[in-house]
């Protein structure tokens, strides 16, 4: 199959990006990543904790030859902080990819788009492949594209809320207005949410809590992989139009009298 998702200079067969946070243990995380089929996984940048002997073990469970790490700037509330984390991530890491988050409100974890645009501008100049977490604002998405973001990643619903795509209309508009990849980031609660995102024309879906918080994270990871593939396939196959009334699937010719 040649239906690849291209981000920056890299191509990916999988359109599902998964997080590594909130798992009960690294074993489950590793199995869930495997079941998800993801080729990109997000990670966070935090201080080494000398008291924690498990330090460093995250990377021991991720096959970084097969999987691209996507460091985030979660927890940053200013462009300056986000840029600082992005630079550290590049230094520690394996690539120039960054999931850029600049948070504007701690209850909703919605982005501060002014600061996000500023950070995007600077990081793009520094050669980063910037994947910005934003909200479903078509104007901001266009500005991000104009600044050189490698994709736009509007939220479907608040991070970790599991509410699904709250505004399909905006995502549909964004899809039509921008040409860089569109990745729905945040809000996915169950498989159909991911399928809906893909059917709206998204190039990919990013999620963490929806998998890690499920009763059976590995089972849900598999569900999400299937759902993203299903939604993509349906998008490409071209759905039937909606009709108000019924239209028989069985012919009326040849009935008995």
């Amino acid at each position, binding site marked *: 199959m040649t239906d690849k998702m291209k981000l920056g200079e890299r191509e990916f067969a999988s359109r599902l990006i998964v*997080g590594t946070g909130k798992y009960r243990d690294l074993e489950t995380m590793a199995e869930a990543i495997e079941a998800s089929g993801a080729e990109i996984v997000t990670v966070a940048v935090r201080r*080494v904790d000398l008291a924690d002997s498990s330090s460093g073990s995250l990377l021991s469970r991720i096959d970084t030859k097969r999987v691209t790490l996507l460091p985030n700037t979660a927890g940053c509330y200013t462009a300056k902080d986000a840029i600082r984390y992005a630079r550290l991530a590049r*230094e520690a890491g394996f690539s120039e990819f960054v999931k850029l988050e600049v948070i504007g409100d701690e209850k909703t974890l919605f982005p501060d788009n002014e600061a996000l645009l500023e950070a995007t501008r600077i990081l793009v100049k520094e050669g980063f492949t910037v994947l910005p977490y934003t909200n479903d604002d078509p104007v901001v998405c266009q500005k991000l594209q104009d600044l050189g973001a490698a994709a736009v990643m509007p939220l479907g619903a608040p991070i970790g809320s599991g509410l699904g795509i709250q505004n399909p209309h905006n995502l549909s508009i964004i899809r039509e207005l921008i040409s860089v990849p569109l990745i729905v980031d945040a809000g996915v609660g169950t498989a159909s949410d991911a399928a809906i995102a893909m059917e709206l024309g998204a190039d990919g879906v990013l999620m963490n809590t929806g998998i890690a918080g499920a009763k059976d994270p590995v089972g849900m990871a598999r569900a999400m992989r299937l759902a993203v593939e299903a939604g993509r396939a349906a998008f490409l196959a071209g759905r039937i139009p909606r009709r108000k009334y019924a239209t028989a699937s069985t012919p009326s010719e040849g009935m008995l009298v």
Partner: protein
Amino acid sequence: MRRQIEIVFNGTSRMIPDAWSVDELLSDLELSGAPVAVELNERIVPREHWASRALCEGDRLEVVHFVGGG
């Protein structure tokens, strides 16, 4: 015996031998081979400078790595 200096390592005060390089400190902490990044006084120290960059009294050192996140 070498003089000790005080630096701030990941937000916590720490005494180390005077003029230790970044690399000496990280080796001592068994972090020199780990996939970590180092920031000294808010400027990144690339891995290839760890050996040559000596630490001074009052230096604020941040050593970060990747943890689970979404």
